[in-house]
Every structure is written in C-alpha cells, then in structure tokens.
C-alpha cells in the first residue's frame, strides 16, 4: 500500500515529489464519508432544482422517464415552496457583478 494516510504505508512516496497527503491526514470511515458525500449532493441538488427539472424534461422517453420527471417536479416544487431558488438567484446576481 502506498497511501500516506495509512500508517501501515510500507513504501515511501516518490523521491523528492511533494504530496498533498501525509500520515497526519485526517481520515474517516467509509460510512461517514458516504454520509458527507450524500449530504453535499443533496445541498447541491437543492440549489440546482430548476436545472434538474429541465434535465428531466429533456430525457428521452423510455420506461421510468415519467417517474423521474414526477420526482424532479416534486423536488423543485418543494424547493420553490421554501424559497431556495430565490436565494440562489440573489447569490448568483451578487457573484456575477462586474462580469462583461
């Protein structure tokens, strides 16, 4: 194994090459990381619900497409109800100030 974050690493990193990781890099269990990745994706999906709905409408018509569209509509409706897209658009406006 060559992963520096594993204390059992039995071979050194390539000579003289800097590294982002070290034996001191903090680690988590795969379960904890799955939870973090899942929540990050939910936050992203909340902020991008109109784009997700557009993407669902653009899917080819095959078995299951209607279900995907229905889920996307429910998700976008829920986000609209709590005002997420409005906040997102405000933030986008601030961040794009000065763009030519």
């Amino acid at each position, binding site marked *: *194994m*060559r*992963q*520096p*974050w*594993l204390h059992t690493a039995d*071979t050194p*990193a*390539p000579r*003289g*090459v*800097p*590294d*982002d*990781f*070290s034996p*001191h*890099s*903090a*680690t*988590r*269990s*795969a379960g*904890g*990381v*799955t*939870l*973090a*990745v*899942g*929540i*990050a*994706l*939910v*936050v*992203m999906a*909340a*902020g*991008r619900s109109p*784009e*997700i709905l557009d*993407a669902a409408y653009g899917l080819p018509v095959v078995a299951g497409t209607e279900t995907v569209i229905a889920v996307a509509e429910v998700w976008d409706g829920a986000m609209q109800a709590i005002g997420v897209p409005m906040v*997102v658009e405000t*933030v*986008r406006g601030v*961040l*794009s*100030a*000065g*763009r*030519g």
Partner: protein
Amino acid sequence: MLFPTGIFALFFAVVFATHWLLVRAAPALVRPFLLVASLAFYGFWSIPFCAALLAIGLFAWAIGLKVRDDENWLILGVGGTLGWLAYFKYTGFLLREATPLAVSLGFPPLPAPEILLPVGISFYCFQAISYMVDVRRGDVAAERSPLNVLVYLTFFPHLAAGPIVRAAHFLPQVAALPDRWRVPLAMGGLLILGGLFKKMVLANEIATGIVDPVFRDPASYGPFDIALAAYGYTIQIWCDFSGYSDIAIGLAALLGYHFPKNFDQPFRALSLSEFWRRWHISLSTWLRDYLYKPLGGSRGTEGRTARNLMLTMVLGGIWHGAAWTFVAWGALHGAALVIERALGLRAVPSGWVGRILRWAITFHIVVAAFVLFRAPDLATVGTMAAGLVDVEMPSEAWTWRLLAFVALGLALHFLPADLRQRSEAVLAPLHPALLGLVFGALLLGILLAAPEGVAPFIYFQF
C-alpha cells in the same frame, strides 16, 4: 463525461457507494467493478476507443510477462505503444507538412485523413510505457493477471488527463484493498472544491472573457488586452490543469487510492529548473526518468547535457500535440534551461531584489512560452507581438473583474504552501454530516459563481 457536471456527480455517487460496499461485502469484485466503472466513464466519449484502450492495456500486460528476460520485448513494447500514439497524434500533421514537398517533386497531394484523437491517449500510453519499463527495471513485478494492469491504466480519475501515475506507485495499491476505516475525507473534499473553483470560476471566466477572443483575432485588440490575454492564459492553463489534477487526486483519495501531487505553486519559481519541479510534476518526472536520464542526463559534458535538455523539452512539447507552436514552446523552455545552466543561475539569489528580479524573468519566460503554446499558429504569435506595441489601437476588452481574476490566480501561488493542510486541520474535527453541509454549500457557491456552461479541460485535447 466531464468532472464538473451533474451527470458525473451522479456517476461518482453510484461508483463511490458501490465501491465501498464491495470493499466490505465482496472484495473480489472491487477491481472488476473499478474496471467496468472506468470503461463506462470512458465510453461516454466513445465506445470504440474503449476497445483501443483495452488493447493497449493487454499489449502492455503481455509485454510485461516477457520483458524481464529479454530487452528486445521492451523495445517492441515501447515502440509499439509510441507507434500507436504517433498514428493518432501525428499522422495528419506529417502528411499535411509533407504535401508541399511531394507536390514540388511532382507527386499528387498526399491524403489528409481526419483521425479522431482518443481522449487521454497521451496519458495512458505513457502509463503503459511506465509499466513495461518499471517491470524491466525490477521496480514492480510483472502482473500474472491482466486485471490489475487494466485497472491501473483505465482508473477513471486519472484516465482523461492524468496525473501520470507510475506503475510502481499504483499497482501495489490495486493489489491491496483500500482501508474502509481510513478515508481522507477532509483533504479529498478540499482538493475537489479547490480544483472546481480554479476550473469553473477562474479558468472558465478568464478564457471566455479575454483569452479566447484575443487569441482568435489579436489584430482587433489593443496592447493592454493582448497583455492581459497572455498573462490570463498563463493563469487559465494553471487553473484548468491543476484544477483537474486536484479533482482527480481528491476523487481517487475518496475511493481510497493515492495519486502524487501534480502542481506545487509553479509561478513562484525563481528559475526555470525550479518551475519544472513544480509544473506538471508527473510529466516532468516521467520525462526525467524515462527520457532525460536514459539519454545520459547531466552525467556527460556540458554540450551533451545541453543536447539532452533540448531533446527532452522539444519531445515534451511534441507530446502535447502535432504543431510547430508546441515544438517552439518546448524549444524555448529547453533553450532557457540550457542558458540558465550555462550561466549558473539555478541557485537561489540571496537578496530580495535579486529574488524579485529572478522571479520576474522566470515568470515572463513562462508567459511568453505559453503564448506559443496557446496560439493556433506562429503567425498569430507575430500578430500578438506586433499588437503589444501598437499604442494607437484602443484596449476595450479588459475589465476590472478579469484583471482581478488573473491577479487572484497569481496571488494563490504566494499563499502559504501548507494552507490546505491547515484548512484540513480546521475541518477534520467536524461531524461528517456537518462537513457534508459545508462542502455542499461551497460546491453550490462555486457553481453559482461560474459562467454558464462547462468548457472541456485544456489537457483533454492531448
């Protein structure tokens, strides 16, 4: 499939969850699954190219079985891989360049076939060579089963644009299962977010705002626009490529695999030789170990060392693509390295004035070389050089926002080198759920700050 897209986020979520599930419940299926997932990732571009990728992998594996006994197998393996690469990358260029000569000799014009370049071919071919040479040198054992070699070559985080991971570094990781109790979440997340910020926000905006328009038609722009485009491209290519590398390193880390660092604040270098120790480290060390040193390196006379440096840099330029601009880019770097060596300028100067001067000279050589790298042809470079001193031409394309983005890209090089480690220390104690919330919010912020659309990564064309 591009990293900064919704479809990739979905793909990665499925691969990530399945991978760790298999590590726990069915370890024997981990490597076959990674191979299938990587081929699915590559298949988004072209299914026939998946077959080509597998063919190179099987070829390298078969050569690896023989190469320890007889060096001729290594010659066949390296020659065959380079021939494969040359066919896709250089056939059209060579035929186009040879046509005037053929016509002048009374032959009909040569055919100019349009050969589609497989994504990542330069990277996976170099990795295949790394495997065969490492086996020959005894740095890694020949794999009895082709599966590990195929996983090494196709592993999706580095498949399209590197980093070029050495066989001796990666195969031991493939052979052993990743530890599901030790996944570097904070560092992996920071690398992915940092990479996305550099690519989506800085590189994309600088590219669409100033670089692409100016390089498309430099005669229509004033000196300040042209200068900003030159500096801008230097920052853009660093943000784009180091951003991609950071995302790749972070994704691999979340799956339990380690890639070495590929960029180390290259624009703070005080010499060209230092620049090449910080820029595209996986390529520069590959060229050093598999080309420069076998040529003799710096062991012979100064003249032979200069020849080896020039050859290595020009071939490094040609590796990027079949165009005279890449040859000129490599030759400029090679010549600068030779001059730097001849003048004894590789040592760091002691005074701050000397250091600033050396930094400015190094940085501007790099900027000038990147103009050659980005320009579609040498005539465009000439037009840009003339435009830089054409004070009659008004500069109207630049904005304060673009100037600030270019300055920010440069300023990032002068932040403390261990800033990411310090940030990791702050984030590490947080509960994974809170960490996910923080990463999700930052990810959303990056997507909102970025211009519409996702431009492909620059190095995908190589």
